[in-house]
């Protein structure tokens, strides 16, 4: 047990180790942040195409979206990452962080699209009908009626997706990137601390704290969005 505490002291009193952990954490956060951003933007576009009225102009876009989400969701993330690194962006000197962001962003988009699509479709069709019967434009109905209600259903599931992306970015260590996961392994290796327990538990706590914070924020947002559903709610 004494050794364990010594290792804790060693980890936190060696600036190089702390520096490595923070750098790793920063990379994890950078990849996650931009990947989620791409995921939400592209996912929204895919969801809108998916839920749009079936007209002849939408046949091809709808087909492309279906193929895209099927392929992304039907193959392992690690393989997608490898394909991005060793096939598509196998260009010397191409920044690996961008490759990683694209890999995770394009992957997350497929899942986010599903989240947004089901959120939109869970809004009572009567709400759209009311808007149509009043003669409102489809865009007005979407922005004023459907979207605000869909968001309530989307936020919790989107929170899950954000958490998944953050954790999943740990596989970038497989292509040699120095993220939080990789930092823990590096600090624990033979030429450094020569003990994995403390750095890995520390890395785990970093992930946990981040995800706990996100869960907390998502709950808060969810709660405030649900206000109008409570009886007696007034503006």
């Amino acid at each position, binding site marked *: 047990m004494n050794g364990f505490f010594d290792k804790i002291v060693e980890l936190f009193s060696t600036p190089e180790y702390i520096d490595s952990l923070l750098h790793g954490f920063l990379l994890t956060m950078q990849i996650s942040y931009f990947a989620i951003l791409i995921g939400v933007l592209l996912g929204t576009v895919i969801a809108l195409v998916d839920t749009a009225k079936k007209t002849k102009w939408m046949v091809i876009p709808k087909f492309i979206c279906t193929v895209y989400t099927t392929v992304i969701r039907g193959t392992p993330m690690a393989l997608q990452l490898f394909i991005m690194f060793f096939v598509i962006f196998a260009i010397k000197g191409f920044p690996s962080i961008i490759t990683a962001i694209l890999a995770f962003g394009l992957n997350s988009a497929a899942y986010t699209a599903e989240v947004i699509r089901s959120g939109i479709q869970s809004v*009572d069709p009567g709400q759209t*009908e009311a*808007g*149509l019967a*009043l*003669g*409102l*434009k489809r865009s007005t109905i979407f922005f*004023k009626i459907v979207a605000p209600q869909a968001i309530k259903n989307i936020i919790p599931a989107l929170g899950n997706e954000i958490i998944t992306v953050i954790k999943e970015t740990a596989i970038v260590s497989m292509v040699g990137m120095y993220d939080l996961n990789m930092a823990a392994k590096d600090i624990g290796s033979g030429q450094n601390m020569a003990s994995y327990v403390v750095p890995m538990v520390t890395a785990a706590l970093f992930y946990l704290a981040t995800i706990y914070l996100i869960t907390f924020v998502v709950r808060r947002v969810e709660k405030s969005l649900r206000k109008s559903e409570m009886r007696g709610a007034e503006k």
Partner: protein
Amino acid sequence: MIGTQKNTELVVKDLRKSFGKNKVLNGINFRLNEGERVVVLGPSGSGKSTFLRCINWMEEPTSGEIILDGEVVTEKNVRRIRQDVGMVFQHFNLIANLTVMENLTLAPVKLKRMKRDEAEKRARELLKHIGLISKMNAYPASLSGGQKQRVAIVRAMMMNPEVLLFDEPTSALDPESIGDVLSLIRELASQGMTIMIVTHEMSFAREIATRIVFLDKGRIIEEGEPSEFFEHPKTERVKEFLEKVL
């Protein structure tokens, strides 16, 4: 006065509607004149609601024409025509994320029928009239069914429509609220509003209708004045129906 009078004429020509292989409407010819109050009756599955919903193209007709004031409803003008055809749904369909006031003012303001302050003034008058001014800033979730439906009717009236369509307006209500909703419809009727109602309230149908239309298997098989229809039905099908429901 809740509404104002207009010269309305609604014509339905050989209206047909199928959902896949299921033929729901099989050639309906119909005419609705200014100030008429038509109640559509018929057994379940006879196409009553579909007929009503085809009039403002909530269901796009498979064939046939809907003509409002001489203008044939098409894909292009349907949005403008809907602004003149009010609709009240069985399940109210108040916008859940908007307050009562916002429900009333959204369409007239967005569609530039009224300025915001004008619309709010009108909404306040109407809410006062139906005794729900205290609910002005409440969300629909805090209203009872009857209150929701009365707000929904007033929301339709905000657009000053030429015709009001009621799709089973009391079917989802408790007996006490039914009375409140029916008196509001009665009031609109007394002011000369042109109305079409699909309902199962026979006594109300008899009281309010200027004409009854009876649908069976997607066709109008009998129509006439309420007293005539209820006391001297011409077809066996209607006799059978009335025996069961009265």
